[in-house]
């Protein structure tokens, strides 16, 4: 010790100095591999410890709402595709239902069931991306491939229906663009059977995996109260134990589509158990309601519920009489007034507002983004976590930046 002190490079009385590590501002993104697009996070860190996370958004802003005031309602459908590009069918559905609400029209029975089929298939595809990229965030590459393999089959089905693989613009105001092609129902049945066999692989690799549980259970706990305060919806809200699903609790024009369907709302109760738990892997003891594991598991649960819904819808669709609805004309005038409707998209409640003033072009078109609200809770969740937990928490919120920025 005394020998060290004589070294010229050490200050006098260096022992009395408090050894202090410096705080670091680390810029994560917008090109970072695990911020799911162009999200930029500024982390205030002390070593591995993250003290504060500030999200910066706007890198994908495309003035979608302003465009909505310059095109007619039917023409805005493709722009809704590009908001949440992973669940374009659901976005189309949300806008179409909102304008239908304003116009006061309702789609025939057969069209409704067709919309349910497409929306729920898209929900599966979207959750597969969420689950797969979440595995990637935690450093596991293989489930990502398995998820995308299955998603590819759904995209093939969609391609067969409408020619597009990602941005469908298929569900339009007044119905759908066309009826299903011949043989599609059987192909969809086959897919569901195959997919149900592949689902346990994901459960083995992720849900039941010891390392996966230790990385996600108890991490980023979002209390239900906080979730409501921040306006979190979708799997993020349900992961906190609130059984709130617009397919059951929404407005009549939306819930009427799902009234005849039997499915469970994927949300844990206070003790962390899910309805009809017996067919799923057990909830690990380490998991706390509202943590990353539950948000992940809610998505896995919803995937199997959606399979169940699509099965019923295929049956109902083939038995329903009539046509699938007629797309309204581009020149269709929107009456004076406004309509707002929220629908249950895979990422949460996606709300659309349309204000008409006796012209085909909406006076105002507005989109309430679920990812935006879910993202806003990030800085609350990431207070005092480790650096490796930040991608785990961001991934569990499952945001799509196209929808956040619009």
């Amino acid at each position, binding site marked *: 010790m005394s020998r060290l002190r004589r070294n010229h490079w050490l200050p006098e009385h260096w022992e009395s100095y408090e050894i202090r590590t410096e705080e670091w501002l680390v810029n994560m993104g917008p090109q970072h*591999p*695990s911020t799911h697009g162009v999200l930029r996070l500024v982390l205030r860190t002390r*070593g591995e410890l993250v003290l504060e996370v500030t999200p910066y958004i706007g890198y994908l802003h495309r003035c979608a709402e302003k465009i909505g005031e310059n095109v007619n309602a039917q023409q805005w459908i493709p722009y809704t595709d590009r908001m949440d590009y992973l669940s374009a069918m659901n976005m189309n559905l949300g806008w179409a239902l909102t304008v239908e609400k304003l116009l006061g029209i309702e789609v025939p029975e057969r069209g409704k069931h067709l919309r349910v089929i497409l929306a729920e298939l898209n929900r599966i595809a979207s959750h597969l991306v969420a689950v797969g990229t979440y*595995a990637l965030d935690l450093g596991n590459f293989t489930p990502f*491939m*398995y998820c995308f393999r299955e998603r590819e089959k759904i995209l093939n089905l969609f391609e067969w229906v409408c020619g597009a693989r990602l941005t469908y613009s298929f569900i339009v105001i007044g119905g759908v663009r066309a009826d299903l092609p011949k043989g599609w129902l059987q192909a969809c049945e086959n897919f569901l059977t195959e997919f149900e066999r592949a689902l346990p692989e994901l459960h083995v690799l992720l849900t039941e995996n010891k390392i996966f549980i*230790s990385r996600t259970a108890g991490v980023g706990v979002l209390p239900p109260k906080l979730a409501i305060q921040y306006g979190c919806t979708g799997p993020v809200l349900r992961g906190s134990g609130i059984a709130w699903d617009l397919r059951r609790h929404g407005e009549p024009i939306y819930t009427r589509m799902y009234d005849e369907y039997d499915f469970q709302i994927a949300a844990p109760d206070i003790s962390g158990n899910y309805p009809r738990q017996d067919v799923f892997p057990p909830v690990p003891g380490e998991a706390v309601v509202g943590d990353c594991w539950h948000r992940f598991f809610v998505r896995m649960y919803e995937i199997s519920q959606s399979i169940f819904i699509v099965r019923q819808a295929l049956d109902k669709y083939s038995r329903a009489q009539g046509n699938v609805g007629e797309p309204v004309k581009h020149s269709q005038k929107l009456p004076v007034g406004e309509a707002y409707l929220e629908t249950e998209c895979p990422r949460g409640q996606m709300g659309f507002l349309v204000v008409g003033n006796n012209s085909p072009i909406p006076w105002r078109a507005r989109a309430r983004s679920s990812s935006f609200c879910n993202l806003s809770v990030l800085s609350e969740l990431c207070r005092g976590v480790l650096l490796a937990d930040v*991608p785990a928490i961001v991934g569990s919120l499952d945001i799509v930046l196209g929808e956040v920025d619009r």
Partner: protein
Amino acid sequence: MFLIFLASIIILLGVFTVAAFLVWAERKVAARIQDRLGPTRVGGRFGWLQSVADGIKILTKEDIIPRDADSALFRIAPYLALAVGFSWFVVLPFSEHLVVARVESAAVFLLALAGLEIYAVLLGGYASGSKWSLIGAMREAVQVVSYEVPLALCAVIPVLLSGSMDLVTIANAQSGGFWHWFVFNSPFAFLGFWVFMVCTTAGLNRAPFDLPEAESELVSGYMTEYSGFRWAVFMLTEYVIMFAVSALGAILFLGGWHGPLPITAWLGLDRLAYPWAFWIQNLAGIINLLVKAMLCTLGIIWARWTLPRLRIDQVMTMCLKYCLPLAIVAFFGSLLWKLGSM
């Protein structure tokens, strides 16, 4: 002198070939695990020459040194890694008579090399001038102090059982069928083998312990700022060391170049009676060792493509709280087992 030079050349080429093969094999195995094809074009149906093509592509890349980097250290780091990686093969025997330098304390020498390897990562991470790289390097430092102790304790078990630190003697002590292998010597040695494999995976920075380069967290960790040839050197070294460590594991626990069944002994192929038996035994020995090392490597690859990554505190917990006591149990258990059977 000339012989040593020749041996170095042969080893250098051989190891490069093995590393290139491993890169290709990992891609193929990963592809098979993930239900896809992997490389299929370069060099025929199975993409044999994919590694060569990648190597050529990497050599033509622009040489970038970031402005904030400490240029000299930035350049040194990959070659330090390479030098350490290849030093393994100086003392690593491939067969009873195929060893460049038969060193009395080879086992300790290799453990020391394993410790030296981290300097390359620390230097690379520190010199890059990037925050992600520095975090990666610091993680490596934390990881090293976690896994080194149990690793050393387990590597000492075969030394204990054979009474020598010379790898040739250790392997020869396991001759005559797989029931003589140290991994089946006692339940404790069996435990020791698995702890050894876990700790080597941690030492290799391979998933689930790939924290220093954790792709989804640290972009690429200490390798973030590296590109082109320097990156290739880091990456090749990883595979070289992966093979070397697997070969070490095979020598220490899996009988080295001794086959699972003592066929030569049954056939009565005594090397004094038949001079050519010497060559056959050595050839079979290399094949035995390579197969065992490749199987260990396959296990490591398999783990990488199956498991998620641990967090840094979980790595420390795992190594210090679980692996260390297990290694101590394995060590003292083997000791007592040996005393009891003497």
